[in-house]
């Protein structure tokens, strides 16, 4: 704990002309410890252990999806892919706190949240397989597509939240970013505006301690990332990002505040990236096993499983059954993905404008005409 901004207490005279004008603090919330034991009473949605089963299944499903996607990439059937291994509680916790009519603005590692929101495994595979149709979600029609340029969707999220506020709707926008993203101007500009206008926006930072090879400490000198909220004059807090209950609880409170006119918030979810940055990365270049291994303790799936088992609502058979179910669903999606034929070449042109300008028609025709040539 460090006090910033007050003068060095060199001698008593300094204080005479100096007064404190503002004070702030950042809190951290956790409900389940690393062994899955409750640290105290749980929030309402978690009162009955069985009520947590959907969250658990959501995390398992995500892990199953990630494993399959990595396998597809390794065998040359998917493009570069960013696994969320170890971070499943952030996406599931955040998305499960959302109402269907809220809007999600995800980053590139947010399949956990997207799957919960109803984006299908097939859609995700299409996208990462290099097919734009994967972003034409049949389910959550207003959710944004995955944002690859880091943090550049936070202003969009503020815009979505502004739209909701202008229409007087009790809805909120939820934007997911990483720790690295909190260094970018877009994040800050958008949060600052959301603060001034009290927008129904919740920004959740999945602080997985790394931005590719850059560790958290090299990203910002702040003790927390949650304190970046203070710059924008909005509430900021930390939650244990490997405790799905804490994530859901924190996000639910923030969404509630947002929907009821209380404005924007920032939530930093403390988690850890247990795998490579993407399939194109080799994390051993910049961190060794000794750093990674301890983080397997307290990882979100095992943590919640321990709690569920200890509370008698989950068994080994349940686990096997659930794993098989998830694997089956994902395998089916993978087959559908592999069986999906390419888009027609004209698709490059068909969605550029609502109506294709005359000047582009000849290009489209040339492209179509040259198809054989081009091949």
């Amino acid at each position, binding site marked *: 704990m460090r006090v910033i901004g007050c003068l060095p207490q060199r001698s008593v005279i300094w204080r005479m002309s100096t007064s404190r004008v503002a004070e702030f603090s950042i809190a951290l919330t956790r409900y389940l410890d690393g062994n899955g034991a409750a640290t105290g009473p749980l929030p309402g949605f978690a009162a009955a252990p069985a009520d947590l089963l959907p969250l658990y299944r959501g995390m398992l499903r995500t892990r199953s999806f990630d494993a399959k996607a990595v396998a597809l990439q390794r065998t040359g059937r998917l493009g570069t892919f960013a696994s969320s291994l170890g971070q499943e509680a952030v996406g599931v916790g955040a998305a499960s706190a959302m109402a269907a009519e809220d*809007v999600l603005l995800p980053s590139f590692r947010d399949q956990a949240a997207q799957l919960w929101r109803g984006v299908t495994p097939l859609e995700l595979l299409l996208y990462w397989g290099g097919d*734009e*149709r994967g*972003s*034409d*979600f049949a389910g959550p*029609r*207003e959710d*944004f*597509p995955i944002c690859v*340029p880091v943090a*550049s*969707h*936070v*202003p*969009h*999220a*503020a*815009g*979505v*939240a*502004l*739209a*909701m506020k*202008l229409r007087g709707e009790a809805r909120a*926008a939820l934007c997911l970013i990483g720790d690295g993203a909190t260094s970018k*101007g*877009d994040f800050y*500009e*958008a949060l*600052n*505006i959301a603060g*001034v206008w009290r927008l129904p926006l919740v920004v959740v930072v999945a602080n997985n301690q790394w931005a590719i090879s850059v560790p958290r400490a090299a990203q910002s000198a702040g003790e927390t990332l949650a304190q970046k909220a203070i710059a924008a004059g909005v509430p900021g807090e930390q939650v244990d990002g490997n405790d799905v209950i804490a994530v859901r609880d924190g996000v639910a409170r923030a969404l509630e505040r947002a929907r009821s006119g209380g404005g924007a918030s920032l939530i930093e979810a403390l988690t850890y990236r247990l795998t490579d940055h993407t399939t194109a990365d080799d994390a051993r270049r910049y961190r060794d096993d000794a750093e990674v291994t301890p983080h397997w303790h307290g990882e979100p799936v095992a943590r919640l499983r321990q709690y569920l088992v200890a509370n008698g609502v989950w068994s080994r058979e349940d686990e096997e059954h659930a794993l098989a179910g998830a694997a089956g669903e994902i395998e089916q999606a993978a087959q559908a993905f592999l069986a999906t034929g390419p888009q027609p070449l004209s*698709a490059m042109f068909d*969605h*550029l*404008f*609502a109506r294709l*300008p*005359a*000047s*582009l028609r000849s290009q489209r025709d040339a492209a179509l005409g040259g198809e054989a040539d081009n091949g």
Partner: protein
Amino acid sequence: MADATLVEAIDLALARAMQEDARVLVLGEDVGRDGGVFRATDGLLARFGPGRVLDTPLAEGAIAGLSVGLAAQGFRPVAEIQFMGFAYATIDQMLNHAARLRTRTRGRLSCPMVLRTPCGGGVHAPEHHSESGEACFTNIPGLRIVVPSSPRRGYGLLLAAIRDPDPVLFLEPTRLYRAMREPVSDDGTALPLDQCAILREGGDVALVGWGAVVREMLAAAQQLAEEGVAAEVIDVATLVPLDAASILASVGTTGRCVICHEAPLTAGFGAEIAAQLAGPGLLSLLAPVERVTGWDVVMPLPRLERHDMPSVARIVAAARRSLRHG
């Protein structure tokens, strides 16, 4: 039908669009109480209220990004960037997001926004306030780029831009804001978004340009007429998508073309027009295509700026050079 300056015509078009479509919002720095530093949004706050006219904090990137979010949600944001010199901070948003949202989602989401900004030199403005930076945006597929050359065209083109279902960068020549008045009938009639305007007909040489320099082109045409040369004056107006057909047709008749713009020469948008002439238009060319543009220099501060800007004399000289051929 009242006489209006360009900046009044912009204001009229904004009010008309807001009146006819509740989804239209205006946002930007100082667009509210102040009515915009050029008064392009004068009176809008009083008339439409703070839910439709939003003074933003000072952050151009976020102004563009907010507009993407609003547009995706069904609003029609018209964002003002105070000067083109500060619009470069929006390129990331315009290129990576605004211009792509429809394509990326295969039409599920779209981005009907307008980004307005004053542009160009000649008003002895401070540093960074006299930019002609359109070429930083013209290679962005999915983004329309429009530049009016008069109050009436400003009114009609801005209405069209706001009604268009896709993102439009709308550049307003600062030098024209108060330079002239002309009758503008506020009847809601839009101009087409992919069509050049032939402002003066002539069969000897085509003068092709956009924005403020159209005035010098017209003056040059007048001067050439006095020498017995009939110059056709084409206001490109909608740079992207480009109505190359009209330009090619005109040069098909004249065989000679002088392209004018304030932006620097190299890779200015004039290059695209010249490239069209070198390609599909080649067989009709009787003389090398001339480009009269800003030099490839940093826009000078006011004391030297006129030396960087295309003058009537330079345009006339280029037309004469062109006419000496063939």
